């Protein structure tokens, strides 16, 4: 969920920007290191940022009648790893602000933090944990993508509640209000996105094992050389 342009006060906008910056820098360094070993990766990451942008512009089939878009957070974290996601999210969010008027420049830091850092970390941790305890892949992916979306939405609510504590109930009451109101759109979205991620991944495993192997996710099939 994107916080719109200008909604956060100055100190919060700057603070979240400062919190996101090290992750973006760290991600860039990781990408640089990997590109040195494998030069094609730069193109892949750049093009994948475009893919994420276009995916997030598609309308999800609606369950409740509200119009919602996938975030691509879970899928991206599983495909590219959580480190690469922070710079990618920075690019995608900047494009969304400037091309779709979705999100904003002053709230870029806060949005990177919720969608490019917290969400991917949750997705990736759950994905690895699921593999470790050998849960079925579909279930693991569903949990990873759904909970990543929920974590993102809770982070956003937290950011809003920190910026605008309730005059009577304080931070906790404000968190309950923001989380409660945005739950109407965000919880169905999380479930839809979880489903979509599993389905996309199934198609990918079936038809493009080689491409997934490039990313180190699937063992290459016999006789297929990457």
């Amino acid at each position, binding site marked *: 969920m*994107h916080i*719109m*342009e*200008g*909604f956060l*006060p*100055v100190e919060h906008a700057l603070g979240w920007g400062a919190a996101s910056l090290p992750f973006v820098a760290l991600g*860039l360094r990781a*990408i640089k290191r990997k*590109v040195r070993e494998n*030069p*094609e990766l*730069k*193109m*892949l*990451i*750049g*093009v*994948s*940022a*475009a*893919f994420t*942008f*276009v*995916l997030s512009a*598609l309308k*999800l089939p609606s*369950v409740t009648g509200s119009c919602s878009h996938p975030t691509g957070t879970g899928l991206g974290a599983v495909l590219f790893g959580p480190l690469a996601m922070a*710079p*990618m999210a920075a*690019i*995608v969010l*900047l*494009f969304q602000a*400037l*091309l*779709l*008027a*979705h999100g*904003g420049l*002053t709230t870029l830091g806060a949005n990177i933090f919720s969608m490019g850092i917290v969400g991917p970390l949750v997705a990736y941790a759950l994905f690895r944990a699921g593999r470790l305890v050998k849960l079925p892949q579909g279930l693991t992916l569903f949990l990873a993508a759904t909970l990543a979306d929920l974590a993102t939405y809770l982070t956003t609510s937290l950011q809003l509640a920190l910026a*605008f504590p309730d*005059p*009577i*109930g304080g931070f906790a*009451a*404000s968190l309950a*209000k*923001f989380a409660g*109101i*945005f739950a109407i759109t965000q919880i169905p979205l999380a479930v839809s996105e979880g*489903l*979509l991620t599993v389905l*996309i991944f*199934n*198609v*990918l495993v079936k*038809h493009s094992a080689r*491409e997934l192997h*490039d990313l180190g996710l699937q063992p290459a099939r016999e006789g297929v050389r990457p």
Partner: protein
Amino acid sequence: MLLDVYAYGNRWRYLNPAEKGLLTGLALVAALMARSPLAAGVVFACMTALTIGGAGIPLLAYLRLLLFPAGFLLAGVASLVVSFGGGDIPLGTLPWVGLPVFLSKAGLVQAALVLARSLGAVSALYFLALTTPMTEIIGLLRRLRVPALLLELMVLAYRQIFVFLQIAREMRTAQASRLGYGTLGNGFRSLAALGANLYLRAHQRSMLLHRSLVCRGYEDDLRWQERDYPRSTRNLLLAAALGGGLVVLALLM
């Protein structure tokens, strides 16, 4: 559909991006620092007048754009205005939980300020997005010393967005004309096939891109030419004066 339709064809397209960037930055600061809704309103009026009157963006298109953040604004402002368990004007009780809902006066004051600030900031964002193409914004970021790798990724991604949007639109039309979105289940299956195919295309495209670049002597970094813009001290001073004026106004009003 995308805002940069206007960015490539408006009256201020060939102004130096540094001037537009400076004004946008200062206007954003002014909108966020505004102490009263009136001050933020002045920022909004000013940036809107420049976008429509100066750059010549059609009024109707601009108004439609202003509706984009309406959903978030409505929900966000509603959260600020209501309070549970205590407040000034009782509204009723929440169904199921039986919690009394109140309208709070402090919340209303805060909501008005946040609403005005957001609109002011949005008008500044639109000013930049509607007058300056992404390529020029990337050039501006380079002059601000943003790491080269990030800029390269941005250039790569920006070009491919339009390729993938086209592919996605065609796939969606093909699926829809075969009733692929007729039922909810089919809709999910179709969208998943679309997403997976799109990813596959992205992957193949990136490999082709790499190969074609290597053929042209690509080693480590991408280079591209940027347009030279006339440097006008007068415009830069005007932008600084207007932006600075808005900031001062925001702090005083």
